[in-house]
């Protein structure tokens, strides 16, 4: 069931190395722009204590939640400080300076995948 890609607008809405929260239909999604210019999207709130992930710190593709320093890899959604935690991720891409996102969550896979 392929859902329709959504246009989030210009990539300039997100400063490099930071995240912003977007509302897409019925949900909020955190979207990050890495220092290298790649975009990643995840669920908006930390699975630990619901910290706003877009307010976190980004290093490469590792994100640190602002409330209690839980860390996650944005590519897989896997928890890197606490492996029992994981984030839902959304496929996102930049095309001609515009961010496109498919609002279809993928949950963090086991390391094997």
């Amino acid at each position, binding site marked *: 069931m392929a859902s*329709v890609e959504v246009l989030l607008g210009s990539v300039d809405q997100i400063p490099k190395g930071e995240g*912003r929260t*977007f509302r897409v239909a019925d949900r909020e999604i955190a979207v990050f722009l890495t220092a290298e210019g790649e975009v990643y999207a995840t*669920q908006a709130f930390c699975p630990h204590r619901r910290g706003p992930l877009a307010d976190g710190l*980004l*290093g490469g593709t590792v994100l640190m939640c602002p409330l209690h320093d839980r860390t996650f890899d944005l590519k897989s959604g896997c928890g890197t400080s606490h492996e029992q935690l994981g984030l839902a991720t959304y496929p996102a891409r930049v095309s001609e300076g515009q961010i496109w996102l498919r609002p279809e969550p993928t949950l963090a896979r086991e390391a094997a995948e």
Partner: protein
Amino acid sequence: MSKQRLVVVGNGMAGARAVEEVLARGGAEMFDIVMFGDEPYGNYNRILLSEILNGTQDADGITMNPLSWYAENGITLHAGHRVEKIDRAAKVVVSNRGARERYDKLMIATGSRAFIPPMQGARMEDGSLKPGVFGYRTIADCQQIVDYARRSKVAVTIGGGLLGLEAARSMTVLGCESHVVHLAGHLMEMQLDVTAGGILKKTIEGMNIRVHTSKLTTEVLGIDKVEGLRFKDGTELPCDLVIVAAGIRPNSEIGQFSGLTVERAIVVNDHMQSVDDRDIYVVGECAQHRGRLYGLVAPLYEQAKVFAEHITRTKVDAAYHGSKLATKLKVMGVELASMGITDPADDNDEVVQFTEPKRGTYKKLIVRDGRLVGGILMGDIAKAPFLMQAFAQDAPLPEERLSLMFDLGTPSAKVTYDEMPAESQVCNCNGVTKAGIAACVAAGATTSKAVMTQTRAGMGCGACKGEVTELVSWLLGGEVEEDPSVHYYVPTIPLRKPELMKEVVARGLKSVSAVFRELGNGEVDPGAKPALASLLITVWKGEYDDERDARFINDRVHANIQKDGTFSVVPEMPGGVCTPDELVRIGQVAQKYNVPLVKLTGGQRVDLVGLKKDDLPKIWSDLGFKAGYAWGKSYRTCKSCIGTDFCRFGLGDSMGFAQRIERRYRGIDSPAKLKLATAGCPRNCSEAYVKDVGFVAVGDGKWEIYVGGAAGAHIRKGDLLTTAQDETEAMLIGSRFMQFYRENAKWKERTYTFMERVGLERVRAVVVEDSEGICADLDAAMEASIAATVDPWLEAVAPKTANQFTSVIPTKEEV
């Protein structure tokens, strides 16, 4: 695309845990979650019910998920609703109070209820239990028992299993004469053999509890309330309170009504799905897996994990293969471990046994084909972790059987933990291994409490708390010394702070990204970014290249993030003094923005708490104050007493001095927060003795300067650095101390730790006596830093980054 609906019937330990496992995997993005619970509360730890009974905890104390947890996680909870019907065709469940919820996926975790064995006179005509007869399964049961016990003299517990024995113990605590009546020939026959049961009986009788074994209760005596029990052998026991703890029965009727296959409980496959309906999962005591039912918490949690992995598709082949039952418990102060069978099946089973009845010690192992198939440890359970591991993994045992039961040659605890295999399970309730605890410690946990909170080890029955604590201290002791990176300013750059500062200056690195690029190993540690930003600001001052992504959120929006993602705003208020007009303005802003909380801070300012990020710029503009820097690793505030203006005892102008301090150092970044105070006399009303820097007026214009004080989580009186001859000198030496600290303290190292590390003598030599000839440099550096600070609230009208204060950016769905 909308979410699927996951409806969970049952809000006990299995149901709530299963939902937690789903959320931990990001499942909130996939499902809208609705839960039904029969009881009118959140989820609580049923294992600890005896603590309610004996009064050591109240209901809050054993709560694991309070009602607020459901709201915070967007879960709709119907508490106090019993689901009566599942319409599988329409995919709808209906509760006894009329709540209807549609589902895409359904999870049944209805658990079990107390089994009341058939006894004449146990119930009244309307089917309710006779007054004085109680089941023992819920908080409500316990509260009623406690209430009734106040009016009772003799209490009998039917059932001599773990629950029954704990209930009987609680009855003695409540002042009743306590009896246990047990059907089998010895106590806890599921976990113990005859010998162990006999030893336990003696121990329990020593606690003033009378134990009656091989007794079948046939009748509850009394017309309108309990007056006694009659047994099959014809004997009677007068009593006025009866607790029935004779086992549990699964609540599987919901499966029968809904047309699911139910044998002893609802039958499931290895994915914990009903064998009849792939959209219905069943977890916990109401599930029957490969012919077996499980009532211990560890298997329930394993099932919950498999369920979560499977339903979220994070592990599509997640499967439950059944659990081998091994348990460690503490019954009435007696430590006990039990696994597998309690008696040999035939002559080929090898039995290894040790008994020391006087001390209540008993050990028995049953070995088949060189592998452990059963075991009982009582009194001394030191070998339990090893044996339970061997049992669970079906591992071959050493030929030397004696070493299975005893630690010979008294090895130290260090050797034991060293030898302990990484996958060895420490907490059986939550399935936490030695490796899991080690990983948590490696990730930065420094206390056993932190480890327990993060891994959940010790948070089930609590029997392993001691072991977790020992293991954590062993891990900390062992690893702290080996890791050279503890001395690095940030973990991925192998330089101490002074070396790093030199390198940064020599290479002209003015931004965090430049430091990582030039000195790092290619890896950008997000936690290290704010540390480097702080260092670069101290080094470069106005020339620092302020990349906002390197700053913690507080420093990006100049406010303090709260647990719910809102922010707090603290206007500057030098010396805790403001004009009536300013106070009115703060009040008007608080009203205008509907501030949820207005609170005076410990630093004599006003805190407006619970504000939306989007409102921050408008609030700053309306306030017309400068920023109070209450969010940062920086100079925070200077408290003062009323000083010489009005006070009868004041020796120095503490209020004026505090204001001059604040106007000078506002916005100065530092390795950790700096909280200052000035006191007009040694009565110390403003607590200057316990501040990072405190000034105390002692007369003749002189000020004592105290540094490294603390009165937070850590309490320390500051060290008397020197006595300055006047305010100008006090300001100068205080300034030098702060600059020396800024250049030499580790990231997040408060002055109280810094002083103990560097030493008062050295600090005094440098900043008072100028022993290293750097005072002029320190003074110049501080002056340059002060000159470079800009009020960050000016960004209200000139934001620094795109959407800096936007909490949510709206989008329109387009193709």
